[in-house]
């Protein structure tokens, strides 16, 4: 068995023996931990160049498809009246939703003092930033004339018109641009002490200078730490309602419409929980291979997998509850359009998507009831991918089934995507991975400072317990 497999098994054994796994298994000296976590940054990982080239190639497909769309117009896409949103908004909601787990981990779990977040928060925050970048592409392209995208922002124009703030779309623009900015500074502020570690351990002068510039001259002075800690906490407290607000604003794009299947007050919590659900799934999809490649089983332990599995279960259950409420309200409202929508979702031309969404989103989170599944990296990896497929399908289903058969049967229309639609979504996946690989290569992706602090705290606590045990033994 290779070292990674041994460590993984050791992690599970430790969990069994200690009645609950530890969030950090290594007790190596700080310098050793720091050098280990910096190795991917200064030496790279196996197969990085190949992966880099593949994702770069895939991103090029994305850029070509976007270029073609802009040059020709969105007639290259499959959407048309009545299904005007289709892939573009599906992809937008999917990507923006994925971003939520990052902020959830970094902000909400920070103010709830969940220490286990410390080893995965940077990873998840980077995922957030890159996911928002992908998400931003879609509404802009969907405008048809993307060069007018800036009209959504209130700037003093010679036309003397302003955006209409009674519409959900400017809310969306405000929410997402704020979200990106706050996520970025939160991520960067957390990164500053680690950039200083990279600067101080850089193998070459050039690297020391580059990391030195980005570390802003951080030297860990007590005065700086005092400002830093409170600023980080405040950013966490501010980002907490922000996470909940962003997908709520996105859901209002839907809920404000009168369309059956969209016109519902449950949308904000439904979207937020769905977002965190799919986001955690993507964190797992990215973290499990990274943990294996870089042999980090003693820093990202079984405990992390379990904790995320439980959160997937909770948020997945809220999503499923919403499916139930939607059906109940359709029946309870007595509106023939609402009832008709539920019927055609279950039996209509897109029934396959309904059953896949209901099936996968029931199965995946509920498997998390089993400890064997929660503690198994392989199971979690497979489930996380299924969840992401299911959640993409859910947004597709939500948009297309509501739009393709609205109030007037004469305007009913079956939606079919074109190859350009497919190229763009596939391309953004590559582009996302491309950005993520750059992140893994150039930024310490496991927080070194926080890992060392955690190590110190745990070692101190263990020493104290040991002392007490000795005292009891001598007394007894």
């Amino acid at each position, binding site marked *: 068995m290779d070292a990674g497999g041994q460590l993984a098994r050791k992690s599970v054994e430790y969990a069994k023996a200690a009645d609950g796994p530890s969030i950090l298994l290594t007790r190596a000296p*700080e*310098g050793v931990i*720091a050098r280990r976590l910096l190795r991917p940054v200064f030496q790279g990982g196996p197969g990085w160049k190949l992966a880099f080239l593949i994702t770069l190639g895939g991103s090029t497909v994305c850029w070509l498809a976007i270029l073609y769309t802009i040059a020709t117009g969105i007639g290259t896409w499959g959407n048309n009246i009545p299904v005007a949103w289709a892939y573009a908004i599906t992809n937008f909601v999917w990507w923006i939703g994925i971003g939520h787990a990052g902020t959830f981990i970094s902000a909400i779990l920070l103010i709830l003092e969940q220490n286990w977040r410390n080893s995965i928060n940077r990873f998840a925050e980077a995922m957030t930033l890159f996911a928002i970048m992908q998400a931003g592409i879609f509404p802009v392209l969907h405008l048809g004339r993307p060069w007018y995208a800036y009209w959504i922002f*209130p700037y003093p124009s010679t036309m*003397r*018109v*302003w*955006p*209409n*703030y*009674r519409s959900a779309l*400017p*809310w969306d623009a*405000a*929410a997402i641009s*704020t979200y990106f*900015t*706050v996520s970025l*500074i*939160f991520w*960067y*502020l957390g990164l500053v*002490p680690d950039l*200083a*570690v990279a*600067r*101080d*351990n850089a193998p070459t002068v050039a690297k020391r200078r580059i990391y*030195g510039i980005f570390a*802003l*001259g*951080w*030297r*860990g*002075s*007590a*005065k*700086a*730490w*005092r*400002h*830093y*800690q*409170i*600023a980080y906490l*405040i*950013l966490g407290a*501010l*980002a907490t*309602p*922000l996470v909940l*607000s962003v997908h709520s*604003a996105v859901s*209002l794009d839907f809920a404000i419409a009168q369309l059956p299947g969209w016109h519902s007050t449950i949308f904000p919590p439904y979207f937020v929980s769905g977002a965190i659900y799919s986001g955690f799934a993507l964190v797992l999809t990215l973290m499990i291979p990274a943990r294996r490649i870089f042999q980090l089983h003693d820093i990202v332990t079984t405990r992390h997998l379990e904790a995320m599995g439980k959160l997937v279960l909770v948020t997945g259950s809220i999503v499923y509850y919403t499916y139930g409420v939607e059906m109940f309200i359709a029946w309870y409202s007595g509106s023939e359009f609402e009832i008709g929508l539920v019927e055609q979702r279950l039996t209509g031309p897109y029934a396959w998507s309904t059953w896949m969404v209901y099936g996968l989103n029931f199965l995946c989170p509920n498997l998390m009831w089993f400890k064997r599944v929660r503690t198994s990296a392989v199971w979690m990896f497979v489930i996380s991918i299924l969840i992401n497929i299911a959640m993409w399908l859910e947004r597709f289903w939500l948009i297309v089934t509501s739009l393709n058969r609205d109030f007037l049967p004469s305007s009913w229309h079956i939606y079919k995507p074109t190859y350009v639609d497919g190229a763009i979504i596939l391309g953004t996946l590559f582009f996302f991975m491309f950005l993520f690989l750059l992140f893994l290569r150039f930024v310490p992706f496991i927080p*070194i*400072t*926080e890992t*060392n*602090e955690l190590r*110190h705290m745990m070692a101190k606590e263990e020493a104290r317990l040991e002392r007490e045990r000795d005292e009891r033994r001598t007394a007894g």
Partner: protein
Amino acid sequence: MNAGLLAEYESPEALVEAARAMRRAGFTVMDAFTPFAIGEVYEILEIPRSRVPIYCLGAGVLGGGYAYLIQFWMNGFDYALNVGGKPLGSVPAFIPPTFEGTVLLASLTAFFSALAFSGLPQISAPVFTVDGFDRASVDRFFLGLEATDPRFDPDLAIRVMHEAGALRVTGVPSAIRETLPA
């Protein structure tokens, strides 16, 4: 810190003890350089509470107020839009951007004020010339005594620092080391 003495310790506990000893010896203008934050040090070195929160509060109120008023002015006066006969100042509709404005300005203030109060960015600093200071970000804990301390006395300070278990004491910037007694 600009000039003075820098003592190196092996653990946060040793640093805290040294800081206490230095306080007892009458030194006041000190700073610590550590890989992670150590709460006890704040009290011993009498580092004042951060002003970041109050600035953030102010910025949040300002950002929210600005976002609300500008919407009110844009959609109610400068380019009045009558949507479904609703009042021009439609309070509920203006809430989401107001919230975003609050969060945005408060967050930016938290980030930039924390950096500014810490005197960052400052890429080059005298302490970086000290041998072994590169471990201050990983596994060494430094206590610095400023030369501006009213009771600055290198001989006494070096003795106290060593008694508290310093691995070594260096002058800052390191060029002045030769002028100091060993």
